[in-house]
Structures are given as structure tokens and as C-alpha cells.
């Protein structure tokens, strides 16, 4: 269907958000991915999250690497600047962009080949630095564009479409993000939009490195029996630790919950997350326990989803560097150039 231009008209009574935009204003061009691709559902979730948060589309910078997942930024937020960079290097480009203008929202989109193989180093170091971003990995366990080779997140023992068994151990990016100090870590499933949309919203409002590992089955190369990243497998083994309702700082809490079943967590910007707990003893604020839980469940073949960890008093790279509030790209020669008088003094000190 990709040869059809997307029609511009829409239903006159399409709901509008606080800015007067409909969700159509958050869309991009028509997807060129395969029909039924999990990535398109994630695109839809990003659009819905931005629409519901009433984000001005042009205040978002979308940055990606190379691969199927990295193509998706063209399919959402058509009025945002996008940057499809080089394979595995989205994190460094995003870090640089973030340093230049701290006022935009940075959405980094990557895949499992992009982040767990060629770009494992950049993934790790951007998380370590606490770059203020939403880092989404659209994780399908295979290389789609090159026809179905295993990626580094493919589970050991899982079967490829051609029948090969993966003998390498898999990389759990969410567990790594936890270990590396991410202040917001979640895992979700492209087939579960009700879980994914609030997680994306909370991640956008989070200050610091927010990492989202979204299992997103590849319908062309990794949706068969024997795969651990297929729709059926993930549905059967999905173990959600919580369900999230995101409550913007701009809105009062209206939702009423049964006492004892809900934990309300406040973020840095005043926004609140209402968590309906599914795993009774799961503590959202305990990094080491989260790591342990992930590994225990992974050993049982379970896919743990939900908001796995959050640090409420988080900060980011700009606070570590103590940079000025004005975006660096808005400073001109008046603020940046010390001038000839200072240079004369420097000359004098060099004689």
C-alpha cells in the first residue's frame, strides 16, 4: 500500500488535544514496512502518546540509526526534524544534538541490531551519561533488511526461519540499562498498546535517560514456531509487573483506584504515574531487585514487561555539566567570544 499517497483530509469531528491538533497532525508519511510489522504499532503508540501529551511536534527531534526500526521516524511527527544517521550511532548523534539544545524532546529510535550489536558501546555510554532522552529499541531479534539473520538479542536456543538454532547467549538491553544507571527502564510489547502508550508518555516526561525495550515481532522473518520473539510466544510468556496510567502534571488525578492496589509515583516535572501492581512484591525503586527479578524470570523463559525501574529525583547530562539554561545553539558572539581585550591579556601572559 506504500505507493498510495496519504490523504490529507480527515473526519471533521476527530478529537483535538489542548493545542487543537488531531492525531493526524502527529503522523508522518505512510510506512514502507511489511504489513503487520510490530514497528508500525510502536509508531502508532508514539503518535498517540505525543497527541495525548499535547506536545508541539516541531519541539521533538527524532534520531535513529540504520535498520527497519530506524526507518520509522519518517512515519510519525512529520513536522519534526528527523535524523537517520549511521548504523549503531544514534546515541552519539542524539547526545550531541541534546548538548546543542536542551529545550527539545529527544526521541532516539533504534533496533536490536543497531543497539545490541554494532552500537552496543554507544548504547551503553549514552545511558551512563544520563542523556535526557527517550531511547526506544524496537526489538525483534533479527536483521530484517538483510533477510533474517539472528541479532544479539535473539535468545539462545531460538530457531531462525531457515531452521538454524541460535547458540549464542542473548543480550538483555533492559538489564544492561539498569546496570548502567538508566533512571527510567521499561519493557513492553508492540502488541500491547494499552501498556505501551502510558510508558512512552511517562518516558517523555522523565528527566534523564529513559530506556524502553519494546519487543516487536518481525512478521517476515521471526514470527514462526521456535522463535522467542513471535507474537504468540510473547503473548504466552508476557509477565507484566504493573499496568501504568500516566497523569500529566497539568491535570489533576481523576482516576480512582482501589486502595492498596495502586502506587502513585511523582516524576521530576510533577507528572504522576499511577501503577496498578500486578506482581505484589515488585518495588519500582529498587534497581538491584529489578535486575535480579529480570534474570530469574528470563531463566524461566518469561518476558517481564511494564515499568521496571524509575528514579524520581533523576537528573541529566546537562546538570552534570552545569551548562547554562539558554540552549547552547542560541548563544551568539556576544555571549561566546571573549573579545580583543581579553586576548591582549592572554598575549601578555605568553611572553
Amino acid at each position, binding site marked *: 500500500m506504500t505507493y498510495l499517497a496519504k490523504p490529507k483530509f480527515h473526519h471533521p469531528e476527530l478529537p483535538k488535544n489542548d493545542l487543537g491538533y488531531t492525531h493526524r497532525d502527529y503522523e508522518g508519511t505512510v510506512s514502507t514496512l511489511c504489513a503487520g510489522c510490530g514497528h508500525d504499532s510502536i509508531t502508532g503508540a508514539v503518535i498517540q502518546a505525543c497527541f495525548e501529551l499535547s506536545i508541539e511536534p516541531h519541539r521533538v527531534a527524532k534520531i535513529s540509526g540504520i535498520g527497519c526500526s530506524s526507518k520509522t521516524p519518517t512515519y510519525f511527527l512529520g513536522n519534526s526534524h528527523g535524523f537517520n544517521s549511521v548504523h549503531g550511532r544514534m546515541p*552519539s548523534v542524539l547526545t550531541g544534538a541534546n548538548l546543542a539544545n536542551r529545550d527539545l524532546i529527544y526521541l532516539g529510535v533504534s533496533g536490536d541490531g543497531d543497539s545490541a550489536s554494532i552500537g552496543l558501546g554507544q548504547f551503553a555510554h549514552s545511558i551512563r551519561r544520563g542523556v535526557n532522552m527517550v531511547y526506544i529499541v524496537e526489538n525483534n531479534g533479527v536483521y530484517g533488511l538483510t533477510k533474517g539473520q539472528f541479532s544479539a538479542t535473539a535468545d539462545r536456543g531460538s530457531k531462525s526461519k531457515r531452521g538454524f538454532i541460535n547458540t549464542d547467549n542473548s543480550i538483555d538491553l533492559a538489564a544492561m540499562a539498569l546496570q548502567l544507571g538508566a533512571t527510567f527502564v521499561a519493557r513492553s510489547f508492540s502488541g500491547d498498546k494499552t501498556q505501551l502508550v502510558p510508558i512512552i508518555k511517562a518516558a517523555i516526561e522523565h528527566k534523564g535517560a529513559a530506556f524502553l525495550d519494546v519487543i516487536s515481532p518481525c512478521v517476515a522473518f521471526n514470527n514462526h514456531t521456535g522463535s522467542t520473539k513471535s507474537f504468540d510466544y510473547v503473548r504466552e510468556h508476557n509477565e507484566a509487573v504493573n499496568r501504568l496510567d500516566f497523569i500529566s502534571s497539568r491535570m489533576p488525578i481523576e482516576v480512582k483506584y482501589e486502595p492498596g492496589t495502586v502506587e502513585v509515583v511523582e516524576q521530576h516535572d510533577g507528572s504522576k504515574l499511577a501503577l496498578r501492581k500486578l506482581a505484589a512484591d515488585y518495588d519500582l525503586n529498587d534497581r538491584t531487585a529489578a535486575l535480579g527479578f529480570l534474570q530469574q524470570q528470563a531463566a524461566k523463559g518469561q518476558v517481564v514487561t511494564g515499568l521496571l525501574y524509575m528514579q524520581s529525583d533523576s537528573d541529566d547530562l546537562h546538570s552534570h555539566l552545569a551548562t*547554562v539554561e539558554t540552549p*547552547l545553539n542560541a548563544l551568539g558572539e556576544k555571549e561566546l567570544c571573549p573579545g580583543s581585550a581579553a586576548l591582549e591579556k592572554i598575549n601578555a601572559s605568553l611572553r
Partner: protein
Amino acid sequence: MPIQSVNDFVVRFANVNGSGSASANEMFARAVLRMGIPVSPRNIFPSNIQGLPTWYEVRVTEAGHLGARGGVDLMVAMNPQTWDKDLALIEPGGYLFYDSTKPLPASKFRPDITVIGVPLTAICNREYTDPRQRQLFKNIIYIGALTALLEMDVKVVEQLIGEQYKGKDKLIEPNIKALHIGRDYALMNLECPIGLKLKATDKVGDRIFIEGNSAAALGAVYGGATVCAWYPITPSSSLADAFTRHCAKLRVDPVTKKAKYAIIQAEDELSSIGMVIGASWNGARAFTATSGPGISLMQEFIGLAYFAEIPSVIFDVQRAGPSTGMPTRTQQCDLISCAYASHGDTKHVLLFPEDPAESFEFGAQAFDLADRLQTPVFVMLDLDIGMNHRLCKPFTWDDSRAYDRGKVMTAEELEAGKDFGRYLDVDGDGIPFRTYPGTHPTKGSFFTRGTSRDRYAKYTEEGAPYVDNMQRLLRKFDTAKDLVPRPLTANSAKPTKFGVIYFGSTSPAMDEAIHMIEAGGQSVDRMRIRAFPFHSSVPSFLADHDFVFVVEQNRDAQMRSLIVNECNVDPVRLVPILHFDGTPITARFIAKAISEHLDKLKLSPMKVVS
């Protein structure tokens, strides 16, 4: 006959790395400078923290020849490991200064030099009990002895000690005492002065004394760089260190104490250049500093910046390659890997500063050029300029100078309905307009990618728009020829059919070599190339001369290759003069090589076809 010379000789200090000799030796060079005598010091150091040999050479040159000369007139031999080689370097009639505590057989010396022994270890053992003090003060003691031997103004050294230890005042007195221990020993026990003498003069003028890396970093501050991403690598690390220091002094908001800059020590060079590209894409001025191996790692990203047209500034402080090569030795060996960096058809802008003054100037100008041309700009320093103190003209800055941010479309222009095509050549100079992210709610956004696209940034794999775009990039490169620093020429007094092209750190040696060549009755016209792509005056210079020597510090004549490739000149007319052993090129080398060629060319004139 011992060498007799006033204000014109070479002193070389042979030390063990990590022995604390560097600051004492540098103090010696500064003291000569304070006496109004130009000096050109060079640090010859190993890739090592402690234990391996290191040398510090000071060329005292009243005539102002700042290139390396070759040969040594006075060797201060403090390293037994390198004794034999050090001794061999001394010019006939030269001088050897050594620690005479342990007697050495006569066979360890040379009959044609003057030997000056001072029992430094014995003196230190007598004066100090602490082993570290014995080590450190030994260096000051030999400087003290040199003040007597060379008839130096000791007050100048005392003053420098005071300046060096300002704030650590309790160190001043013991250092001055050590200085005088050495001086007094020499005055009482040795014949002072020797044939080499220092006589105060006024030849330094208002020149300043600084390393090229520090000057380039200061240029980046003045040029408005706000983002620096780098990965440690010799010999460029001190550039990023200097930027950090300059920013801490010059770029902190006095009220809020907040930084008007961001410096990231990245995990590798790929990440460094990625951050630079991300920041530049988003409208900040950003740079990285690296050396050859870093350039190799950055290749893919450099191609992206070229093709997606993102300004970026890269300081390449060159060292001897290939591979790890000689990491602490100098070369000009990254010309090809920078000029045509990355896969596919690419060409990049290179700037060739000759000294710290131009490192500052080009260091600032690189950001204007990168923004104007929306492309990577390389500032090609080398270890010789970057890591050595060099005397140069003082830095200047015109306060009315505004940064040239290039063609950036504003929200107002977009609102007024101006046509925005990210890759649309509206002015015929090959340079399109860009927008910064976040400029306008509904207009001016575009998708940046390394894949081919049409003039409105829409993805396409069709041949015609691809070719259209690649041709425009060539037009842009043509535009660059008139924007980059122009070559400088100096014609010889007599008309000549011979020319010489040189660049970068070769400059002072070339200037000196010209005197030697002319003294031999030969003449050549000079052209110093300061940038790539070449200005039209380069092909003109080639056309005006039958033969042109191209002097460079690499094996493969990389500048010559660039000239042959870009100027379509018959390679036979370009005579390579190549120096690539890792030491800085010398006037003696250049003069000898060119004179020999000139003799040969005159004996058997070749028919020039062009």
C-alpha cells in the same frame, strides 16, 4: 677548535622520562627568551610515562630561524641509556656536559669535543637526603651550571622560578638555592664561559610563546565553539585539555557560574564525531580533536557529514603512521585520508596552519567555513606545531567580527512563505539553506539522512536527482576555493623557472632553507599552501614554473598527489622532497635536497611537455 657562537647554537638535554626534567628544561628556554633572544624548543618524547629516554632541544637563534636545525652544539647528557647516540650527535668542536660523579673511561668520550663534567649526583647526595628531592633538584643544578657556562643572566632564571612557583611560595627558596649551587660550582671549578654565549638583545619583540594545540583551542573559544567531544590520543589530547582550561576561564557565566560550553570525553572517536555532527546539525558550533588513527575510525561519519551537509570541525594533530606508527613523532601524513575521507566520492576542506598564530586564526575561521559551506573542515596541525612551544606573532581579534552562521532559514522567512528545499541550490554557489530543528511549527522541517534524496530532502534512489545532488556538491567545493585561506607566495630576487610548494610546520625550515639555497647562488620562488581545495593561484604558480619542488613530511608525497589530482598537472614537473623519519624537517635537509636537484636539472635539462 671549539665552536664559538653568540646567540646561535643548539642545546639538547638528554633525560629519562618522568625525572622531572621537563620543567627545568623549559625554564632554560624561557630564560633565553626573556633575554630577548628567539628560541625554538622541541620536545622529543617517547610513548611512555616513566623510564624511557626523552630529549628537549633548544635552538637558540638570534636570526629567528624557528625550524629544527639538525646537529647539537651542546649536549647535556643526563641519560646513560642513550649516551653513545647522544655523543654521536654533537657537532665537531661541540660541547658535552655530563654528570661526572662516576668516572668514565676515555673511550666513552670523543677527542673533537669539549667535555664539561659536573659531579651532579655527588652534589645532590651531599645537599639532600630525600631521593625525590635529589632527583628534582639535580635538574635545577645543571641549569644553574649552564647559567655560568653560557654567561646567562641568572636574575632572569630567578624571576622565572618565582613565577613558576607562585602560590607554592615555599618551593621558591630551595629552587633558587639549587640554582646557585650549580652556578657556583661551575664558576669555581670550570672555565666560564665556554665558546657558546648568550647575550641579551631585543629580537623577540612582541611575539608570544605558546603550543599550537593550546592556540587552536583558544581559536575554537573565539570562534564560538560550544560543544567539544573527544577521545584521548597523542598528540591531540592537549588540545581538548587546553579548550577545557580556556573555557573554565573565559566561558563561565560570572553571575550564575554556569558553563557556556559542553565538553564530553567520549568512549571512542566514532562517538566523538557523532556528537559533533549531532550538535552541529542542531545549530551549535562543535568540534573534535584527534590524530590519524582517530581519523581512520571516523571515516563513515565524515562521509555522512559530507553527504548530509552538516558543518563539523575536526582538528587533526598528525603523528607518524601508518597504524600506531610512531605515536610521539611528527609527520604530515593524513592529507589523503582527510581530503578524501570516507567511501564513495567525497572531498573535504583542509586548512594548514604553519604555527600557533595560524592555529588560532584557522581554529576560529574553521567554524565560519564549516557553517558557510555546511561540510566538515579539517584543521591539519601536526605534533611539531601542536605540542611544542613556538614563538609566533601575537593573537589578534577584531571585535566587530560577527560569526558567519551561513545559510540558515529563520522562522520569519518560513512564515513569509520563502521556498525551503534543504538541498536546493538557490544562489548558484552549490550551498543550500538549512533550518535548525524546532524552528517553526509547520514549516521547514526535513529528514536528514545519508541516503540519496531530492532537492526537497525526500528519499529517492533515482539516478537523475542523485547525479544532480552530487554535481551540486562539486559546485559547492568550487565555491570553497575562494573562501579558504589563500596561498602565500614569495618570489626570489632573480627570475627563476623553479618553484617550491610547502605547507604547515615545514614553514620555518623552508624560510631558512631559502637563505641557504640563495647563498649557493640558486633561486626558487616559494608558495605556501594554506588550504585545500586549492585556490586558482596554485595552478597559476605551476604554470609559471618549469619544475616545482613539493616539500612535505610523509613518504608518499601526499600533497603532490593532491596537486596532480586536482590541478591536472604533469607529475614529472612536480619534484617530491620528502622527509618522514618522524623528526621535524630541517633547513639543512631541504636546502641540500633542492640544491642537488637543481644541479641535476641544470646538467640535463628535461623537455617540459604541458
